[in-house]
Each structure stands twice: as C-alpha cells, then as structure tokens.
C-alpha cells in the first residue's frame, strides 16, 4: 500500500477502465461485452467483474464464432461464462453464410475475418445492444490511435473517423438516436506490456494457446500458422512440429504464432518486454493494405 496517495500505473489504468465500464452500465439500456476469447477481452471481463462486485456483471458476453476458432478458445469461453454466471450470446458466421447473407471468400488468402462484420452487426441488431464493449487498444494499430473511449456508430454500424465527438476529461457522451450504437474501449490506454503485467499481477487465467506448446504448423510468407482442416495447404507446404505460442488469438487461418519457449506468465512478460515486433505483426488480415484496419473498422468491424 502506498503511503503518499500515489497509484502505480497499473492501478491507475485499472481505475480508469472500471470507471468506463460503470459509465456504460449507467448510460446505456442494453450494453454487451464483445468477447473474442483473446487476452484483451479476458482482461475486460476481469475488470467488469471487479467494477460490479459483489454483483454479477450486468451485461452478456457476446461472441462471434467464425467456425474457424481454436477449440481451446471455445472451451475457455464456456467455462468463464459459467464461472462468472454471465449470459453468453453466440453469433455464428456459418449461420450467416448458410443464410446467404455473405459469401465465403475463396482463393489463397481466403479467411472469414471480414465476414464476421455482417454476423457481428446482425447480432447487435437482434440483441438490440446499444453499447458493445471491446478489448481494442490504441497502441495496437495506427487506425486505432485516434479511437475514443465511447465511439459512435451510425444506424448501419459504421464508424466515421473524421467526425468523432471530442472527448474531454472523463466526461463520456453516450447520447444517441434509436438504432445507433456505441463501441466502447475501456483498454484504450493500455499497452501490450501493461496487459501482460496486469494478467500476471491479478493471476488471470488464460487459454493454453498463449503459452509455449508443441504444435503442427506451416510457415507461409514468413508467418507461422497452425495446421488445421480449415487451412488449405499450398503447393510444397508440409506441416512440421514446432514449439510455439500465440501473441493474439484470432481465427486459426490468420493468426500467426511465434517460436517461443515461454511457458509461464513471467517468461511471456519478459519476452514481450524485449520484443521488437508489434503483436499484430503476425496478423495476415492487417497486411492486406496500409489502411486495412481503418477500412474494416468503418464497415463496423471490432
């Protein structure tokens, strides 16, 4: 305990995020937490549990299942929702495809990453959610550096980066018309290293994929991808056993692993502190063009 009424930076970030989460519960009728199964959304869920203790988190976890998720992610998701007593809502990209709302991508770069946006917006509309809390951080990607805590979306779910509301002090303006919604980012001011330090400090459980393990992988354009039935092989590719871990968890088909021996939180934190490549450096989806994140965000992506 500090004697001079000073908080360390993790306590200050935690206090800010809890304030944002409570503000969402107070200002909106039907908020939800967008839960990807990745470490950032796990930290958001942990912060929400703290913000509303001893009550249950007063909003559901919404997961968009692409059908290409790691099995470990799905098991972890179900166990967490059960332990916290929170409602789990799952939107299925496969169902969106089957209903003919979107068409599956084909070709060598095919992924379901972009298709998720339609399922996400459908799920938001069905649930009538007026605020969707995400785990994105400003340090992740350049299009996110200008993101607000309360980010307005029009009634088509679109983001207009040039006409964002100025955000002053901690006065968040969530006022909106029917049909519009907000995306809310309580972790805006956290960096990847802050996240790992906080997970270590709070002893937050994570899916096993984040820790070094042996797995069959293929190396494609310098990116290590997990071998699976959803990843069609290209000519000359043969999966080999590698010791890897994941820095972010997206779809199987696009999430690059890194070669690593870090099998504890302490080792991972040390590795993150020393690394010279950003965590999204392994994301094939961000490499499509210089502004691919901005383009997806404008359409309503996470």
């Amino acid at each position, binding site marked *: 305990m*500090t004697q001079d*009424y*000073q*908080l*360390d*930076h*993790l*306590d*200050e*970030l*935690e*206090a*800010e995020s*809890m*304030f944002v989460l*409570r*503000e969402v*519960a*107070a200002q909106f009728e039907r908020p939800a937490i967008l839960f990807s199964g990745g470490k950032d959304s796990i930290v958001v869920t942990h912060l929400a*549990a*703290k*913000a509303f*203790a*001893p*009550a*249950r988190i007063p909003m559901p976890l919404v997961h968009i299942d692409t059908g290409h998720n790691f099995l470990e992610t799905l098991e972890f998701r179900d166990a967490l929702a059960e332990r916290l007593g929170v409602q789990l809502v799952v939107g299925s990209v496969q169902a969106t495809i089957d209903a003919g709302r979107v068409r599956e991508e084909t070709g060598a770069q095919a992924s379901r990453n972009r298709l998720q946006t339609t399922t996400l917006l459908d799920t938001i509309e069905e649930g009538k959610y007026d605020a969707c809390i995400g785990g994105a951080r*400003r340090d992740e*990607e*350049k*299009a*996110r*550096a*200008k993101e607000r805590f309360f980010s307005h979306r029009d009634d088509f779910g679109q983001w207009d*980066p*040039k006409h*964002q*509301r*100025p*955000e*002053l*002090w*901690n*006065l968040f*303006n969530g*006022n909106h*018309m029917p049909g519009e919604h907000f995306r809310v980012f309580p972790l*805006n*001011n956290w*960096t990847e*290293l*802050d996240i790992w*330090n906080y997970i270590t*400090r709070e002893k937050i459980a994570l899916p096993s994929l984040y820790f070094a393990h042996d797995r069959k992988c293929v190396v494609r354009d310098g990116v290590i991808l997990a071998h699976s039935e959803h990843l069609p092989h290209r000519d000359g590719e043969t999966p080999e056993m590698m010791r890897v871990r994941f820095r972010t968890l997206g779809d199987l088909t696009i999430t690059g692993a890194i070669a690593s021996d870090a099998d504890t939180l302490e080792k991972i934190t040390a590795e993150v502190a020393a690394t010279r*490549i*950003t965590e999204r*450096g392994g994301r094939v989806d961000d490499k499509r063009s*210089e*502004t691919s994140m*901005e*383009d997806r965000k404008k359409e309503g992506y996470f």
Partner: protein
Amino acid sequence: MSTTNQNSLLRFTTAGSVDDGKSTLIGRLLYDSKSIFEDQLEAVENSSRKKGLENADLSLLTDGLRAEREQGITIDVAYRYFATPRRKFIIADTPGHVQYTRNMVTGASTADLAIILIDARHGLVEQTHRHSFIASLLGIKHLVVCVNKMDLVDFNEDAYQTITSAFRNFSSRLDIPDIKFIPISALLGDNVVEASAKMPWYEGGTLLSHLEEVHVGSDRNLQDCRFPIQYVIRPQTDEARDFRGYAGRIASGVFKVGDEVVALPSGMQSSVKEIFVGADAVERAFPPQSVTITLESDIDLSRGDMLVRENNQPQSLQEIDAQLCWMGEEGLNPGVRYIVRHGTTEVKSMIREVLYKVDINTLHRNEDDKQVGMNDIARVRLRTASPLLADDYRRNRTTGSFILIDPGTNLTVAAGFVS
C-alpha cells in the same frame, strides 16, 4: 496494490505544427526509448520511400487514417505510449493547424504536463501564446518550454536566453506554477534523451529525465472530499441480499472507513462502513481510484448524488459563470437548450448571456463580437434546470468541468470551466 511495479503514469500533451519539429521530437522520444517496433519502422520507411522522401517521416507512425496519409495532415488528437524503467507515459499529440483549439483543449484536458516547442530561430510566435494560454486555461500545472533547433543557431546561449526571458515576461499573465526551459535539437537528439555535448553552458537535465522526475502527485486535490456516485450496486443474490454499494471514482479528497459523510443534494448524514476495490476491502480511497462505498445507515442514493464532508461542501449552482471552448461546427445558438453533462449528472440548460470572447493570441477581451463559433473561447452565464454540485475549475478539475451536448444532434459542442 502492486509491489513489483511501482512506477507511476505521466500524461502529457504536445502541441505544434509540422514545421516546429514536434513530430521529430516525439519520434526521437519513442525511438531513443526503444518504443518503436521494427515492423512499425519498416512500414514507415516503406511509405516514406513511396512518397519520395529520403528520411523516415515519423508522423506516419500515427497519421494512420487514409485521409491523413493522402493529404499529409493530422486530423485529430493521436495518443502514443512509451515507457522507461522509471515511468509510463501517455502522449496526447495534437495537431497545430485546423481546429487547433478544439484539439488542443481535448488533448490537454487529461494531461498533467504540456510541452511547448519554440523554434530557436524565430522565438515566440502567435502559436506559442495560444498553446500556453490553453495549457493555463485547462489548469495544467507543469509546462516544459523546449527551445528547439538549437543546431541552427550554433547552440548559442544568447539566442536561448533571449527566448527564455521573453517567455518569462509573457508567462506572468498565465496561471502555471512550474515552467521549465530546455534547449534541444530534436533532429540531432541533443538534450532529448542524451545530454548535449555542444551546450556546456546548459546545466539542467534532458527532456526525458525531466519527464521521468517531475512530481505531479501533489497536483491532486486531497483536501476536498468529493465522491460523485456513478452507479448503484445491488446484487440481490442470496449471499449479498442486503448489499447496497455506491460505485464511483474519487474526484478529490481522501475517504476513510468510519468517516462522517453528507450525501448531497439531500443533506442526509451517515458514515463510511466499507470501501472496496473490486472484491477487496481497503481502509481508505483517494483520487483517481474507482471504488465501491457502503454506508452505515440505510439511505437511498442514486447516480448524480455526491458524498462529501459536512464542513467542506461544493457550491450548489443554478446560475453558472463559466468559460466555454466552443467545439461544434455550428456556432452557439442562444435559443437551444443545451444539455450540460457534469460529473455523473445530465441537466438541461439555457445560455443567458455571452459576456465576452477572449482573443486566444493576445488574451484581450472582446465585448463587441458575441458570435461564438468553433474554436472560440468565451465567457458565458448559463442557467441549469436544477442545481449542479460544482467547485471552481482551478481548485477541482473534475467537479469544475462540464461539456455541452446539442439535444438535436447529440454532439458534444463545448467544453466548460466553472469559474
């Protein structure tokens, strides 16, 4: 609270345009503190080459929106992060040109410190006055004046001294207690992270060492106890049937278990029974902690109420004199009933009178032109539908600030300072 990671957080803002070397300075801080990643640098180098530039244009690091990259401008406040073993830093980087006032006010609203850049060849310019005045208006207590491009004046001490004394003259009109001067060359790195060998006459530390050491903890108001209730926690589960907790963030002062408190606006008295951070009970709470407080007596409070001490209460104001920084694309319309969002309350208001506008470059009052448009600073008198529990902004940045929302568009149209 963590014992392993005791470094604190410093939020600062930088203002300026492309020419005064602001991007170079930030790039230097990030690069020399090893906060730029290899793939980020590679992407910036590739884009710079595509644009025909010889050196990496570090502004491309955060000018990430398509329109910004195409037009070579910065549209909005960009937030950047770096850390040293001693401190974590959040930079609110605000563009110097279009919508400058609106963006700088936004960036400065959460900052503890502001960096002002002055080109050693040109001395104080209009923009220097504007940025310094905004920092003062926003209640920033620490200013760092970086006299940049010292390499272009042969690292000459007289050039530096002329600028610092001119700034001291000007700053007597500001309300900023701590002003620090540093001669630097952001381009060559002198006195940014590494001490300069070319300016032996300068005996102070580097910019980074100052940022690491500057003490901002005492800027927080620990005297006036203010706890605006944000959300009421009532689990209504079997284990916690009777639990009623008041969740919120301490705006100022220190609350301890056992303290006598008064709930406003009702005036009902009680004492603090428990304080929680998450599920953990603590003995006391101070700003900016987010806590949950339970009271000894069974009184019913709701969002917008405030816990304070009996002998130290905020003003209850319905006629409010305030400075406004106008941010809306449409100007102030006296016929509109703007919504005031103050702390955890929202209330309708009427702007009774525009008293004067402030010329942001000269600080002169203009009582003749009362048309308030985007980027204007004006003093107004407004009336709210019910009283606000407010303090003077100079004394309390949380209970002294508010925003105005246009009820027709829901847009945030002004920042307000109670004074």
